[in-house]
């Protein structure tokens, strides 16, 4: 039976991590001597179906319905569970985003199937899909398999390469109805405020991160501020005016340590580490981060780590390929200038 891949879409575009999931699915399909079926639900599904073909899907199932528009879990689960019941796929695979975690866990419960989440490696052995996934925030790895007819798998972003798209392709496209979706949904969407202009941490190839050291900004806080309030102001000012320009020059996302988030220097969305996001970019630049074990757990999968810290003894240096011992407020602007000179 085919390997299903949910191609997650937003505002009519496929998420790039979905193509990584399609690549991972192809490996599984090859191991099981079957093919891949991309599932494209919602807006602009016809165009995305063609893209899925170019990225290697042999078949595509599309479903367009108004009730899929605002990403309510209930409609997607109903649709996916019906397809799983009717077609008994060998596996259902998706990139481990928030929406995919919800969707695959829900559909796996509906069909009493095993779910292996957040895998960084996949293989087939004697017809079983075996996933390697981090546990204890990456301090330990575990190998896991599902004992059920269908295995559900979410794959960690950037753990699998996206296939190179073909110039053109002609996948077998099938449109299915949305009868499975209840006419009355339990959740009403009142408002959606998009997050604009920021690179998503988990998709980012480069991350520039700031820690407690961000408060050592030489730029003076307003005169009426003192103590903690002044530190927060200085750190926020540093994230916006020192780190962000470097991140923008690099096309990087902004990360932060728990210490910086807990101190109120930056919003939680940016936290990297055990109680934040686990990331694995090509390049991770840690600025003013000492490198507590909780932080390491979130970023140790990065390909190249660079540490900038005043304290030559900071544990982050042991994990880093390159280090500069110095004040981040001097080093980061110099780095941006050097980069701009190099790029002309």
């Amino acid at each position, binding site marked *: 039976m085919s390997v299903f891949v949910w191609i997650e879409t*937003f505002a009519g575009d496929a998420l790039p991590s979905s193509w990584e999931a399609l690549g991972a699915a192809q490996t599984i399909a090859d191991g099981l001597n079957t093919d891949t079926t991309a599932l494209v639900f919602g807006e602009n599904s016809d165009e995305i179906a063609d893209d899925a073909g170019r990225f290697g899907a042999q078949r595509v199932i599309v479903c367009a319905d108004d009730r899929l528009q*605002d990403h309510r879990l209930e409609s997607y689960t109903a649709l996916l569970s019906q397809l799983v019941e009717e077609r008994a796929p060998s596996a259902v695979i998706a990139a481990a985003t*928030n929406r995919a*975690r*919800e969707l695959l*866990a*829900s559909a*796996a*419960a*509906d069909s*009493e199937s*095993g*779910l*292996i*989440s957040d895998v960084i490696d996949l293989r087939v052995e004697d017809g079983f899909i*075996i996933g390697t996934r981090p*546990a*204890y925030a*990456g*301090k*330990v*790895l*575990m*190998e896991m*398999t*599902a*004992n*059920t007819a269908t295995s559900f798998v979410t794959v960690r972003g950037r753990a699998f390469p996206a296939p190179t798209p073909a110039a053109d392709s002609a996948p077998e496209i099938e449109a299915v109805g949305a009868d499975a979706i209840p006419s009355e949904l*339990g*959740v*009403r969407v*009142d*408002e959606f*405020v*998009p*997050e604009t202009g920021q690179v998503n941490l988990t998709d980012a*190839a*480069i991350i520039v991160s700031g820690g407690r050291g961000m408060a050592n900004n030489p730029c003076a806080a307003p005169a009426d501020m003192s103590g903690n309030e002044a530190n927060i102001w200085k750190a926020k000012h540093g994230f916006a005016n020192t780190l962000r320009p470097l991140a923008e020059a690099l096309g990087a996302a902004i990360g932060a340590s728990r210490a910086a988030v807990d101190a109120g220097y930056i*919003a*939680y*969305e940016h936290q990297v580490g*055990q*109680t934040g996001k686990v990331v694995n970019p*090509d*390049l991770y630049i840690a600025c003013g981060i000492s490198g507590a*074990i909780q932080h390491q757990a979130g970023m140790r999968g990065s390909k*190249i780590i*660079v540490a900038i810290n005043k304290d*030559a003894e900071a544990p982050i*240096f042991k994990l880093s*390929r*390159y*280090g*500069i011992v110095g004040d981040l407020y*001097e*080093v980061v602007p*110099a*780095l941006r*200038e050097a980069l701009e000179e*190099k790029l002309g």
Partner: protein
Amino acid sequence: MTHVLTFTRSTPDTAAKVWVDDEGAVTWGEVATVVNPWDEYSLEETIVQAAHGGGESTVVAIGSALHNDALKHSLAMGIKNALRLEEAGADCNDSLVWSALAAGAIRKLGDVDLIIFGKESVDVGTDQHSYQLARRLGWTMLGYVSRIIDADFAAGKIQAERMLEQGKQTVTAALPAVISVMKGINEPRYPNFLGIRKAAKAQIPVWSAADIEVELPKAATTALRFMNPPARAVSTEIIAGADVKEKAVTLVERLFEEKVL
């Protein structure tokens, strides 16, 4: 009366070293466990929402007596009731077995309006339990809640803000519902002295699958083996140079050589 319920578990401290021993078992040595750090937010929110609804709060753990520590911490914070479910031979690491037991307990209690989960557990690192429980109960699920705008228990509805990767979504749903909450939704309180003393004396009831009339499903997953991650073979080069500018130029050169720029 309003009844808000939450689940918790004991996990090794996030600062603890965790490794796989010679027998292939996961260990964290002698280090004491803590309440799962993500659950501090769900425990706080449970206390707040139960008070808001003028009702009861309950915390449940599924698994061995290891989890009593997390339950006692929850009581010390101010949760009213604690309960542990333990079934010999049940593979509670499997989320479908776990959610079958959890659903059984909720049905047995019969009066729960709102279930609040922390986003995930720092040990197994999955956030699938909440969704699977909601599915088993047939309740509405709201994941990644960053703010409860209003839980109106009398009218039976909840309005909340959810944090998606692409932005913030405000939703309204009917109760009963299952939600999972993010860090930042509140400032978890520290247990006070009186709370700790009261919790220390609490007798925590333990229910088995038979007590809640649940027939357990077979585990759908098997953990085959645990491994220590490969050591990061890294030799650190501290960039040398006469001044910051020279060091920055050298670092940029190195990063181009590494092909990460």
